[in-house]
């Protein structure tokens, strides 16, 4: 439960964030197996500290900055499309971290997929859960599920509709399958009405889901998590109704 601290100088009370105040077997198990792994020489405590620090430092804000800068700086966008890993250094992201040669899970080859008004990209990793972690942070849990990975390549429009993204039929849809040799992220189309926005303003509407391709940026939408709205009408899943897949790009 939350604690109340009363500083000795008589200042205002501070309320610590609540914590789970019990020791679970899961917590104990994680510590125990890690200690044994270190003792067996599978890795060092220093390596673990370094990877932990790196994991805590990554997040989708870097990707948002990259997209916003690409929108307002055509020369930067050209560099992104030519060599995305190198261009990332301009926004302070070095894919070689934390080891000097990246991580085993983040192969240092990134391709940015540029959307147009008639072309939309969405990324997946059918093999496992490859994801551009240096730019987007840890992948969301749904991205790792076999449900998303198997179904997106077979019924991409239906799966996107489940995220609330319904693309017009005239928009071509490409599913890009990440793998151990290459990571992908989506460069969405800059939405109308944002032409005079600053880079910082633009970055706020480029959420993680926009860079995966399961959402589109729009003014006022600054988070992937938002209050659920009541459905206005029943939604029929075309997959359940037996509709054949229309797209299978990879």
């Amino acid at each position, binding site marked *: 439960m939350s604690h109340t601290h009363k500083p000795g100088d008589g200042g205002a009370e501070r309320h610590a964030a609540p914590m789970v105040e019990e020791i679970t077997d899961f*917590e104990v198990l*994680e510590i125990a197996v890690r200690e044994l*792994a270190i003792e067996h020489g599978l890795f060092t405590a220093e*390596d*673990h500290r370094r990877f932990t620090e790196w994991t805590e430092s990554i997040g989708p804000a870097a990707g948002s900055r990259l997209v916003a800068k690409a929108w307002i700086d055509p020369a930067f966008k050209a560099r992104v499309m030519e060599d995305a890993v190198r261009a990332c250094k301009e926004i302070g992201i070095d894919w070689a971290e934390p080891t000097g040669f990246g991580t*085993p899970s983040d192969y240092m080859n990134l391709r940015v997929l540029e959307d147009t008004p008639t072309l939309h990209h969405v990324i997946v990793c*059918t093999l*496992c*859960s490859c994801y551009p972690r240096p730019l987007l942070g840890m992948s969301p849990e749904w991205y790792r599920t076999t449900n998303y990975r198997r179904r997106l390549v077979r019924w991409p429009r239906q799966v996107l509709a489940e995220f609330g993204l319904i693309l017009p039929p005239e928009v071509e849809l490409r599913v890009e399958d990440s793998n151990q040799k290459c990571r992908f992220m989506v460069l969405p189309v800059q939405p109308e009405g944002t032409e005079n926005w600053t880079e910082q303003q633009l970055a706020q509407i480029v959420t993680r889901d926009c860079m995966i391709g399961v959402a589109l940026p729009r003014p006022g939408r600054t988070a992937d998590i938002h209050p659920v709205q009541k459905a206005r009408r029943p939604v029929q899943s075309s997959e359940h109704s037996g509709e054949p897949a229309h797209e299978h790009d990879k």
Partner: protein
Amino acid sequence: MSTTSDVEPVRIALLEALRNMEKTWEVLAPRYGVTNPNPPWKTSLTAMCDCLAASGALPALDRRRAEDELADSVYREVPAPERQLLALVHIMLSRGLVSETDLVGRMRAVRSRLESA
């Protein structure tokens, strides 16, 4: 999709005894008013997976393949962070990277240490 891993989807006594669904983060966090979506050990777990891959002790693709199989079988009903932890330990036990005997003893020592703090 992935090919079959070398990890058997069998029940491991130690891990079966630990899978208390009343102690998963999705149950405990709201009980204590905690809004963090992940337990405090999740980042450490992720780093451990990276370390094992970096050292070559457990390649990332092997781990993910086995994780998928275990998530669809033995740990199907366990929520995400706990499922990933149980799967990783399951894989490490299966591959002989750690032994069940050592793990039981170390868990006892770790709990004792944490509770005495």
